């Protein structure tokens, strides 16, 4: 299985829909300070079910919705879509592509969708079990956190090893 595309709309600084397509190999994301690169990393974690606004640099989950700029009003909702190639059926569904979607509305209402049908976070987590894909996987290293494994307590480190074992 591999990642094909992430798209986001109304998520943090991405007021308008923006898509990033991925192929095998190394994809670099570049740009000036504050342009939105780490927000893309946050979008990955969020759509895969991150429950803690703090781990997304916010104070509450509503902070994930575009909150306006000098030229634009705030958005009514945030949406992130993650598209996977599933030709090898690593995800236990008989489909060539799998689409995961998360939405959050200003009202606080929130939805998950699997292939455009309503789903629970539980279903999405089960789908990705044992694939190394998830909101809190060791394969996402956030800005400033690269030596986290070194400075963590030996017990915290243990938890990461457990996940890998």
């Amino acid at each position, binding site marked *: 299985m591999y990642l094909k595309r992430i798209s986001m709309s109304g998520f943090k600084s991405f007021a308008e829909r923006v898509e990033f397509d*991925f192929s095998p*190999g190394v994809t670099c994301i570049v740009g000036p300070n504050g342009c939105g690169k780490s927000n893309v990393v946050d979008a990955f974690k969020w759509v895969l079910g991150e429950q803690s606004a703090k781990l997304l640099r916010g104070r509450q989950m509503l902070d994930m919705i575009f909150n306006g700029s000098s030229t634009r009003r705030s958005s009514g909702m945030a949406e992130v879509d993650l598209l996977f190639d599933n030709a090898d059926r690593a995800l236990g569904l008989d489909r060539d592509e799998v689409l995961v979607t998360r939405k959050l509305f200003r009202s606080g209402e929130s939805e998950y969708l699997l292939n455009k049908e309503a789903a629970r976070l539980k279903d999405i987590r089960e789908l990705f079990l044992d694939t190394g894909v998830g909101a809190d996987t060791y394969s996402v290293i956030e800005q400033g956190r690269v030596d*986290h494994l070194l400075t963590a307590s030996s017990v915290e480190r*243990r938890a990461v090893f457990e996940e890998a074992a």
Partner: protein
Amino acid sequence: SISRFNSVFEAIRENFHELFRKLFGGGKADIILEDPNDPLECGIEIVAKPPGKEPQRISLMSGGEKTMTAIALVMSIFRSRPAPFAILDEVDAALDEANNVRFNTIIQEFLDRSQFIVVTHSKRTMSIADHLYGITMQEPGVSSRVSVKFAADGSGERHAVA
């Protein structure tokens, strides 16, 4: 189960020693169960000895040395348990040029089994990109995507232009 955890732990341990030596050009490193009599519960300690130096507390290591050691450890876990993609956000921030090149080399060794999405300001890191996305705020406060090309400049060094 104990034997399953132990076999994964041993695999990571071996990888860690090998990757550390590749990233540091020598030296040795180890991960140790704090209490071998309690392998299912005890914590995990890290010991690292860069080439030519004495084994050090991790805390005394430099910023760049800690980044390289952490990369060695994360990639060791990654090798035992590959994920389809890894996302790295400015992990190269503390690295000098020589270490940035070694870091790039290690990433390239893992490309056969995973995609890498790497956020960076480093031209060294950008130079190994197969694909490059730029993000910009043409409209203040609003992010959008731009295509990015590499241009050769006088020094032959490629730099990104929007």
